[in-house]
């Protein structure tokens, strides 16, 4: 396929269809409505199912049903809707079912506003719903990456039998950029565990209620081992101007994108700063931070939140003698590259002392 000019939300939908997604269930919420609309127009035509559900709770549970019967399924929403989906995400994790959940985050607790924000970092990376589970979280920073990582999300979900989240915000969803779509996935992995009726074989069940204490513990440890394996094999990040950097900015998604401009400006002014951009938020790329910690004079974490990912940076660097500073805005408004430049300058002067 040639390069096309497309919005982020449409891109995710198109990429999902190309990834073999056959079921989309969702409830409208800004700023991600175009995703569901694209599915209504195109997934049905492609022989799949689109349902505008009665709520986010219903949507995620429809995903549970579709996933249980072996079909690639997805839902999307924005912050308040994701809170409602947490019940289902916990169940998907307990059942060990693959699914893709998109969150185009918005500002504030409650309704907040629809402008970009990154306030759902804790909710996404800490499980979010009840119980001891983690969800792999992918955080794209361009429309091309939205396409690529949507495909990756479906693959990870199937490989590890776990829900996977793709998070962005209104800016990621609404902006248009050129994108080249990956080829249509023709062969999907076989899912021997999927429930399709017992046929001639023995009957099977998917349950998350495990009354036997020891068995329940075994199941929970099994999940933990899986999350460890994901951490070992699936951590993704981008390094930008880091080869000779003495100062490192850590930022993801929209924030990282804006910061690249600020870093270029800082470099012109002779400040040796680079960017570490986590692409997976869980697993968090802690190793790369640790590997360079000895040559870095200071880490500066930028977020459109009052400070959430910065905790992961501090945890990663707990055993290292290096300063971690934070600059955040709670979202609902997009910081400018100029604002970030000023912070980088201030940080540099302070660190040098």
């Amino acid at each position: 396929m040639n390069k096309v000019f497309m919005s982020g939300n449409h891109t995710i939908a198109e990429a999902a269809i190309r990834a073999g997604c056959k079921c989309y269930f969702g409830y409208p919420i800004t700023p991600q409505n175009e995703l569901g609309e694209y599915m209504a127009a195109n997934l049905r035509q492609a022989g799949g199912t689109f349902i505008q559900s009665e709520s986010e709770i219903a949507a995620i549970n429809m995903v549970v049903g579709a996933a249980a019967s072996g079909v690639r399924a997805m839902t999307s929403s924005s912050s308040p809707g994701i809170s409602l989906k947490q019940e289902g995400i916990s169940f998907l994790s307990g059942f060990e079912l693959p699914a893709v959940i998109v969150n185009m985050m918005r500002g504030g607790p409650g309704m907040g506003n629809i402008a970009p924000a990154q306030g759902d970092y804790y909710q996404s990376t800490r499980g979010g719903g009840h119980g001891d589970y983690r969800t792999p979280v992918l955080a794209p920073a361009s429309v091309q990456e939205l396409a690529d990582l949507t495909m990756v999300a479906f693959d990870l979900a199937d490989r590890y039998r776990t829900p996977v989240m793709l998070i962005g915000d209104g800016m990621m969803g609404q902006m248009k950029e050129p994108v080249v779509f990956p080829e249509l996935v023709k062969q999907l992995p076989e899912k021997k565990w999927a429930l399709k009726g017992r046929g001639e074989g023995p009957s099977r069940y998917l349950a998350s209620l495990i009354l036997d204490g020891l068995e329940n513990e075994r199941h929970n440890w099994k999940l933990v081992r899986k999350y460890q394996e994901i951490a070992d094999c699936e951590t993704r990040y981008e390094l930008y101007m880091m080869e000779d950097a003495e100062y490192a900015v850590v930022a993801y998604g929209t924030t990282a994108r804006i910061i690249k401009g600020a870093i270029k400006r800082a470099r012109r002014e002779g400040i040796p700063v680079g960017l570490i951009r986590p692409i997976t938020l869980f697993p968090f790329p802690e190793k790369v931070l640790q590997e360079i910690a000895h040559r870095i004079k200071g880490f500066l974490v930028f977020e459109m939140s009052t400070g959430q990912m910065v905790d992961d940076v501090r945890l990663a660097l707990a055993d290292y003698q290096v300063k971690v500073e934070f600059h955040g805005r709670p979202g609902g408004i997009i910081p400018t590259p100029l604002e970030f430049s000023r912070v980088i300058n201030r940080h540099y002067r302070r660190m040098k002392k």
Partner: protein
Amino acid sequence: MKLINQWPQYYKKNVVTHYCPGCGHGVVHRIIAEVLEELDVGKRSLLVCPAGCAVLAYHYLDIDVIESAHGRGTAIATGVSRANPDLFVISYQGDGDLSAIGTAETIHSANRGENITVIFINNAVYGMTGGQMAPTTILDQGTTTTPLGRNSTLDGYPLHITDVVAAFPGVAYAERVTVATPGGIRKTKKAITNAFQTQIEGLGYSIVEVLSPCPTNWKMTPLQACRWITEEMSKEYQPGLLTDKREEKRKQKG
């Protein structure tokens, strides 16, 4: 010698029941197993179990089963059925599950006319959590959260949810039955057969509400519980056909 009955193929053998003596769940499970066999759909069935006493239905029914979060049965069933229209999908739910926490899912799956069958066990209480009031609890009925009996001013009125959904154009078949008497059990089997057939023919949503004893939480003997269904509960929830739009749906389908 003529064989008049045998162990149903889809009913597991040699399992110890977790249901209380006199509970209706076991009776309904057995009927489901029999009808699955008679209509030859067990091998392509997927049963969605509720949070409630029937959460362990996979211990008894020898078909594929997925458990559901409390109230979400028909959303899961919708997902299964839309993803795999060849599957025969049953959502098995209690009254707390279906008519309290899952009201929205119940109403909307019915209104979309999903091609699924709902088996709705109405025992007028929350059984599993120890006998609290359900939306279906009848007036003056004592429960742990209506210790002086359900009072309409304080607690609202009994909810007739099956009557509500029966009025929807997407609902092809709805019937209320009881398992409190041998005759009632025969009618229950007939109703479940009709409901399953509705789905097999692809006519849309079908639901069978079963008035079912919960002797433990009603603080009765099994016999008293059956009598209470016949004498008290059936007055509030009259057994009988609530809607049958199958003929009309067949014509629509052509």
